[in-house]
């Protein structure tokens, strides 16, 4: 707890580096990631290669892209339980619309984007308009989308998966944008990893260095105070919901153009993975505190664990139990960090 006093301006105290680092939201997650990484490197020899590192990154990015949005939304004080299913709604919408009407896939992708943004806006509008907790509103959207995914897919294609769209115009170009990969040496790098890293940098910059970021923290930490000093509360929150549904659409496009067909029942349960990534990364469940880098580390822990268990040759069924333990530990660390950062250290 060493405090160093700078000479100018007088009486200004800067906290020692140890305290400043401890007050960051992502510290707990970072320590956990290092421990888990070392653990699997010891337990599973095949985990140590560069190839498997990039496989972990790919796995992390597919969860991590939406998790960044969910993290921002949770810092803004809201939940989105429909974030897992909307990924598949986006893909199914695009696939079946274009297959049924025989139009270019780019048209379907654009309409699917509009559809997802409308779902996000609707979630946000209902939450802000009615004052009902977002947990309930998006639970409703979650069930509606889940049912519609299955019902409409069955109706249109006659089965529970979407049809082959690889011969419809636009499939290849969309594949290049959303689901391509390239080689560095012997290592395969999926493009989602690049998008994910760019997105983390963008979200971190927005949160720390822009007016919108200030507003996101404020509407999550103390919504009424934020509104009273002129922060557009309703607009900020609705845009956060739309960000989540936009990122859901993005990953939906990746799934569709990587695998060509989608299972109509997919995505259920992923909403909790996003929330776990955000919470493990130091986001407060009550809003107002968190970081984009923390959420990224949370998603990376998910990626390491899901593959590490396989590489170590264990029964993958244990994966969820492990995630549950991680979540509990993260909540405890968060509680401790929050207490640390709101107690007086100086002055």
């Amino acid at each position: 707890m060493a405090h160093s006093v700078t000479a100018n301006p007088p009486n200004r105290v800067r906290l020692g580096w140890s305290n400043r680092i401890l007050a960051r939201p992502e510290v707990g997650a970072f320590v956990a990631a290092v421990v888990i990484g070392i653990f699997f490197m010891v337990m599973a020899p095949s985990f140590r290669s560069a190839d498997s590192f990039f496989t972990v990154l790919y796995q992390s990015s597919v969860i991590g892209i939406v998790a960044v949005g969910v993290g921002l939304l949770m810092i803004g004080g809201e939940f989105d339980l429909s974030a897992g299913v909307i990924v598949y709604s986006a893909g199914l919408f695009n696939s079946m619309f274009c297959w049924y009407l025989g139009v270019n896939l780019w048209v379907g992708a654009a309409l699917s984007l509009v559809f997802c943004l409308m779902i996000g806006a609707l979630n946000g509008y209902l939450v802000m308009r009615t004052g009902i907790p977002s947990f309930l509103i998006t639970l409703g959207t979650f069930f509606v989308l889940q049912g519609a995914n299955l019902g409409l897919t069955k109706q249109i294609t006659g089965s529970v998966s979407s049809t082959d769209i690889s011969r419809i115009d636009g499939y290849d170009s969309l594949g290049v944008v959303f689901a391509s990969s390239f080689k560095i040496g012997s290592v395969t790098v999926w493009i989602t990893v690049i998008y994910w890293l760019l997105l983390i940098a963008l979200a971190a910059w927005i949160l720390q260095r822009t007016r919108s970021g200030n507003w996101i923290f404020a509407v999550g930490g103390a919504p009424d105070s934020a509104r009273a000093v002129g922060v557009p509360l309703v607009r900020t929150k609705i845009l956060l919901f739309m960000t989540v549904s936009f990122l859901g659409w993005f990953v939906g496009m990746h799934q569709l153009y990587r695998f060509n067909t989608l299972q109509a029942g997919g995505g259920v349960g992923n909403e909790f993975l996003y929330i776990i990534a955000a919470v493990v990364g130091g986001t407060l469940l009550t809003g107002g505190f968190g970081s984009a880098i923390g959420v990224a580390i949370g998603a990376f822990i998910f990626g390491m664990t899901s593959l590490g268990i396989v590489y170590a040759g264990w029964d993958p069924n244990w994966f969820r139990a492990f995630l549950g333990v991680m979540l509990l530990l993260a909540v405890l660390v968060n509680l401790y960090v929050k207490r640390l950062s709101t107690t007086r250290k100086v002055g």
Partner: protein
Amino acid sequence: MTDTLAEHADRELHRGEPLIEMEAVGKSYGAIRALKDINLRVNAGEVTCVLGDNGAGKSTLIKIMSGLHPHNEGILRVDGTELRFGSPREALDHGIATVYQDLAVVPLLEVWRNFFLGSELTAGRYPLAGLRVGQMREIADAELRKMGIEVKDINQPIGTLSGGQRQCVAIARAVYFGARVLILDEPTAALGVKQSGVVLKYVAAARDAGLGVVFITHNPHHAYLVGDHFVILKLGRAVLDRTRAEVGLDQLTTQMAGGDELAELSHELGRKEA
């Protein structure tokens, strides 16, 4: 400390000119009538004191002026134009800044971020406009120093400050951003004697810089130190509306303490002097 006020005060202000006028303004929340038939003028270069007991309608009155809740009866004019605020942002855009008793700050945000919340300084054009972090830190620190608050670390979450210090940050912020009208909701309630003195000096300084000040308080002594015009609310109605020349501290204190009710109470309690 008056230099901030003078620097930021609107140059177009003329002493005595009405900034906010209310005519028969009322407000109901569903079936509950919080405010009825209020006539109030906030003039440039004057301090209007609003006094009243808990539940008298003081908070509702300032929420109408600051844009938190729109009124639903009567007329509100700002600079002579009739309008109805849809959000606090609109009131701020008219140069009306408010310090709320209960809605002051966002606890987990740093002191400087709280200071500039809703009015951040940015550089560059919108989507790429970054915050001018260094400049905002310096201004926040300097403005707090002028109020006599030494925040040792401007980067600490504001939740780590004491209640009085938090209130002072909120006041410093309103003084810095409020160019025309400054509304203070019981600013001295959470403060000690010395800090209350600082706040009262600010109220006087704002008046001298030509701003219209609305000062809401329980305390007639504080009100009488700075006020030019006094309004006492009771159960949502104005029961007294006088200028400084027409009312003395004694009368103000008696009215505030309940006036007639107090006499009646003393009769009921009936301690007869033997």
